[in-house]
């Protein structure tokens, strides 16, 4: 067993972190968030580096790497909150690649992999999907339905109405369509969604990690009653709890990414665990970060609220913790049934 990354994966992580530390500084993220627009300059740069196509097959113009590499980039982008359409576009590409027809792959993946176009993924109920991140600028929108079906649409085949979500680092829209608009995804939509869940969970892990780092730095610095507040156990134990939640989410997310690449027999279970764990961790850790920052944590200037807001949107994306625990319970019930039958 080895939980470590390969040298190549470590290199991807290191270069991504360095690049984003430089190009997605908090003040730059805030500037774009306040203007409600994506960072087009940074996005172009990431496209030149081939980021959007990292997990897309080479035959479709991508780098042909796996879920683990995609997960690494999502985590780093989550840490930085860079206002770029990476995740929505990667989610759309994942669904098309794993559940689409060869024609759909050929039509959409090269553009998504190269970054010439961006995509978005939404969950539709009776043809309407709310708060679809990345949809205002997407050239291709994938909608999945509760019944397990999925469709690929162009913006012309849907009504895309921008909506101001609480997280302005990722523009969102309401997407409505007639029920027969677009093309059906003919393949295994569920397997595509499980891979998409790994990507969202990875972003949440990155958000948690950053929230914890900011909090630890702050409570070491901030003094009350003559000592750093981080010396009080009420505060330090909260930080320890934040680490525990983050590491739990990282462990199950890593397992899910590995399952997607190496052993899909437990992918559905692993993806459900990853998303349930990361959704809860994202909410709890970022809420704790605000609390541990005290009054300053409630101000607009302290950047910790952006993390809370991103976590809120990601936590419900493709189903929240309760949804995925219900899925997991159904898987467990099937296993009990199977072993009883055996």
């Amino acid at each position, binding site marked *: *067993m*080895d*939980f*470590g*990354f*390969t040298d190549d*994966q470590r290199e991807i992580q290191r270069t991504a972190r360095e690049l984003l530390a430089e190009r997605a500084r908090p003040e730059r993220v805030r500037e774009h968030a306040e203007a409600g627009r994506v960072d087009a300059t940074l996005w172009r740069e990431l496209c030149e580096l081939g980021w959007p196509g990292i997990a897309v097959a080479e035959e479709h113009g991508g780098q042909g790497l796996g879920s*683990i590499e995609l997960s690494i980039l999502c985590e780093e982008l989550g840490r930085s909150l860079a206002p770029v359409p990476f995740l929505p576009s990667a989610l759309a590409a994942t669904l098309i690649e794993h559940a689409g027809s060869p024609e759909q792959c050929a039509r959409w993946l090269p553009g998504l992999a190269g970054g010439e176009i961006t995509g978005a993924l939404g969950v539709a109920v009776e043809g309407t999907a709310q708060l679809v991140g990345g949809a205002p600028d997407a050239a291709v929108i994938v909608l999945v339905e509760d019944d397990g079906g999925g469709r690929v649409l162009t913006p012309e085949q849907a009504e895309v109405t921008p909506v101001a979500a609480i997280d302005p680092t990722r523009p969102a829209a309401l997407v409505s369509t007639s029920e027969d608009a677009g093309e059906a995804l003919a393949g295994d939509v569920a397997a595509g969604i499980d891979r998409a869940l790994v990507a969202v969970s990875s972003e949440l892990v990155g958000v948690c990690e950053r929230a*914890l780092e900011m909090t*630890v730095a702050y*409570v*070491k610095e901030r003094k009350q009653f003559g*000592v*750093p507040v*981080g*010396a*009080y*156990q009420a505060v*330090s*134990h909260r*930080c*320890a*709890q934040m*680490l*525990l939640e983050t*590491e*739990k989410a990282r*462990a*199950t997310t*890593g*397992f899910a*990414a*590995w399952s997607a690449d*190496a*052993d899909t027999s437990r992918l559905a279970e692993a993806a459900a*665990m990853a998303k*349930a*764990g990361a959704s809860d961790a994202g909410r709890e850790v970022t809420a704790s970060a605000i609390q541990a920052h005290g009054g300053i944590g409630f101000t607009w200037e302290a950047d910790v609220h952006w993390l809370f807001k991103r976590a809120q949107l990601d936590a419900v994306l493709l189903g929240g913790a*309760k949804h995925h*625990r*219900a899925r*997991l*319970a*159904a898987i*467990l*019930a099937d296993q*009990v*049934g199977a072993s*009883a039958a055996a």
Partner: protein
Amino acid sequence: MDLTFSDRETAFRDELRGWLTDNPPDPKPPADAGDDAQFAWRRDWQRRLYDAGWAAPAWPTEYGGRGASQSESAIYFEELGRARVPFAANTLGLLLGGPTLMVWGTPEQKERYLAPILSGEEIWCQGFSEPDAGSDLAALKTRAVKDGDDWMVTGQKVWTSGAQYSKWCMLVARTDSDVAKHKGLTYFLMDMKQDAVQVRPLRQITGEAEFNELFIEEARIPDANVVGGVGNGWKVALTTLMNERAGLGFALQIRLRQLLDDVIAKAAERGLLEDPLYADALAELHMRCESIRLLAWKGLTDAERYGQPGPEGSLVKWLWSDTNQRLTQLAVDIVGPEALTAGTGWSYELLRARGNTIEGGTTEVLKNIVAERVLGLPRLKVAA
């Protein structure tokens, strides 16, 4: 990332699994057969492990082990847990005493003590905690004073499991009161078979006495039984404590998994898996169990690759103990009155689990360790 076992590890697991299938322990003596019968059963089990070369695979071959890697050792405990066999009678000697002597013992000490630990001929116990020195272990007061070639020891120890069956006690005592509290300690091997050492069973909330108190009144320890040098007891004790969590953790993690599987089966039997509240709680426990497994393996393999295990191990123990308490509590709702009836397995698990967040480092201390040593938060200054 590769979350599968290597061929060598798989072969190790299969060999052990095969042996356990072919050589099951005798049936557990009934609860009313008494502690002595239980202990004899575990001693017999250790003897069988020993005869087959399975008593301590992690020990180097020169001391009778198999030189198993840390991963293989973890597999060993997972498999023992999975087979639901008892812990070997001399688990403390095998896991703590032996490895501590291998690091700090003299050649004579290794020659004298290691073999009878392995065979189970001599049982070991651990004399660390005291009534006034629990989490603050270095504050211990048991004193050892030089008397010719011997040391004379007087004091009191607590939470000493297996003391009534033990020949040797890993004893930490104060040999110098004039230096800082961590510096005045010495690690001894104390012969338990002397009148100056009185063992009194300590009845716990489950009703049984898994542990004892030791009352030590001028017990004699030859100077040759000092381990690691006079005044070096804190460091030697840390070696013992580092080993405490390593192996056993994997057996306990599998035990938790089995208990959860039992609870899920009960829930299925009663149709509670379709109840959203129970389904949610059980799924959460399943996730915690998997997180514990993944984090435990991650800690171990990182240590194998990058050196010493980090204080991250505290996270696993914290999460395990909390999860076992949640699980045994939920089991009361799923199993029903049987779980609150004295003498049942479920009621035992419910009560025993309360000790999990206290023994081997309280959750409060573990959070301090995580905060200070993993996150680097400042330490609150307390009166020395």
